[in-house]
């Protein structure tokens, strides 16, 4: 019961971890290269979700300097970190996709299993 209650309170974290595992599993097991790249993004996004969820306080204001009376700001640091993370994720994705384009040009397929087959046939 206690565990369930904790889960209900911290559902952000649960969702983040589930997404993380989905991403990781797809990335490692799926043979389609494009799907691997998508899974990589899902995995990154799950971490971003977790990070942003950590920084959020219910009822907090966006961290822009102004007069907010009795209110309080949410933690701006996770947001800043995640922005960096997103930038890094974008560049890795772009690089991975350009590699996929090149691989497709050489093998005519984006399926890792088929690539292995083509290579073994040639040897």
């Amino acid at each position, binding site marked *: 019961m206690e565990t369930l209650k904790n889960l209900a309170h911290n559902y952000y974290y649960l969702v983040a971890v589930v997404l993380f595992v989905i991403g990781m599993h797809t*990335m490692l097991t799926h043979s389609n290269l494009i799907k691997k790249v998508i899974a990589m993004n899902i995995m990154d996004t799950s971490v971003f979700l977790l990070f942003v969820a950590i920084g959020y306080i219910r009822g907090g204001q966006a961290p822009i300097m102004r007069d907010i009376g009795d209110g309080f700001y949410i933690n701006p640091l996770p947001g800043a970190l995640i922005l960096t993370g997103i930038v890094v994720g974008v560049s890795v994705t772009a690089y991975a996709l350009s590699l996929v384009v090149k*691989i497709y040009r050489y093998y005519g397929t984006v399926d890792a299993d088929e690539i292995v087959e083509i290579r073994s046939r040639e040897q």
Partner: protein
Amino acid sequence: MTLQHHFPALIIVIFLICAFIMPLLFRWRSTLCAPALLLVHLLALAMAVALLVRLYAGGPFYYHLGNWAPPWGIELKIDFLRVYMVLILVGLGLWIFVYALKDLAHELKREVTGWYYALYALLIGSMSGMALTNDMFNLFVFMEICGIASCAIISIKESRECLEASFKYLILSAMGTGCYLMAIAMIYMVTGQLNFQLIREALPAAAGLYPNNLLVATALIIVAFGTKAALFPLHVWLPDAHASAPSPSSAVLSGLVIKIYAFSLFNILFFVFPASFRQAVPINEIVLWLATLGILFGSIFAMVQEDLKKMLAYSSIAQIGYVFMGIGLNQPTALLGGFYHILNHALMKGMLFMVAGVIIQATGRRRVKDLNGIGHVLPLVMIAFTVGGFSMIGIPGTGGLISKWYLAEGALLANRLFFVIVIVLSSLLNAVYYLPIIINAFLNPYEGREPVKPVSRLMVGAITAGMIAVIFFGVYPKPVIVFLKAALAAVIGM
């Protein structure tokens, strides 16, 4: 404040600036690119030496980027071990770059050499950043730069194998950094800090309240750095990536890149996690056993390889195991051996990949079986290979013996006789696959009609320099050992 105060940041920044300028410079005056990068390496080397001098005078110090002290700003920490790593990175980076100057013309198209230089500068710069930073998130950013740059210096040679290996590497390294980012999130969740030292202070209280979070974070960190540094079961990307890359890339990837991840893991284990935490969770044991498996299986896999560069790549998995073993044994002498092995292995593996590059360029052969009698046509190069192979095995007079010696002594001092046996056994395994190549190369006659292509003197010179260094650090290891002993005593207080 004098300029010297800014050297820690400048070491990283000049490499980054060099990387940004390189595409422009290549378009404008392509002949200036190589001298510019050489100059940057020399400058960085001079700065690293100046840091060392300052360390001897005043002890460890910190540099706050943008004058923001932690917890707000990013902090660089300069202590003996980190400067040791930076010296290795920049010094050996320079050495491999000298070799690359001539080798690249053979392996890459001319249009992309400018990009290669840019990536190389980015790689060395980001690795120096990883060595110096004292901030979890900053480490992540440098890791990603390093990851992309190291994939790119593989895929820049656009053969099918390279692209495929590079993609595999990219996916697994993205998994590694993803895990690391998750670990940062977990740690940030319970401590609210990103600075190594501040996390260390906040961890004991947090460990009592949220033990599960920290357990998960620890596991993720081991997976992350294990993947990046090719710790045994996570090594699957390494053989393809290091074998298919252009030879200078193989040398820098095998020699430097995997070491810096091992060093970062060491930093996190010893400077983020308090000693009490390390005793409560058997992190060191896990690393130690994985390293042992890596040492044994890396060598066993290397034996059955037909491709020379693939064999060297598998041998790297075994050798990085020694570094991790030093970390895992958690004993000053063993750590000393591990750190000395970082230098030694970077030297000898760099040199061996250079030798492989020269053999491939001169004769076009890369299968182990075809190397019969190659010592008659490329004598100096094969002598270097012999020295490298001997150093891998740990024959007296070479650096490999010294690091293994200290590792074994550390294992004995920690009362872990089993690991001494592992070290001896792995030396035998190394001998099984290095010695036949050496024997066949010198004692069998050279078969083959096609003429041996001439090899640039600069490349042979770089290999010779490496050979001399391997022997030097084997015959006269005292300065480095004394330095490391003092460094470890000062840094860890053991």
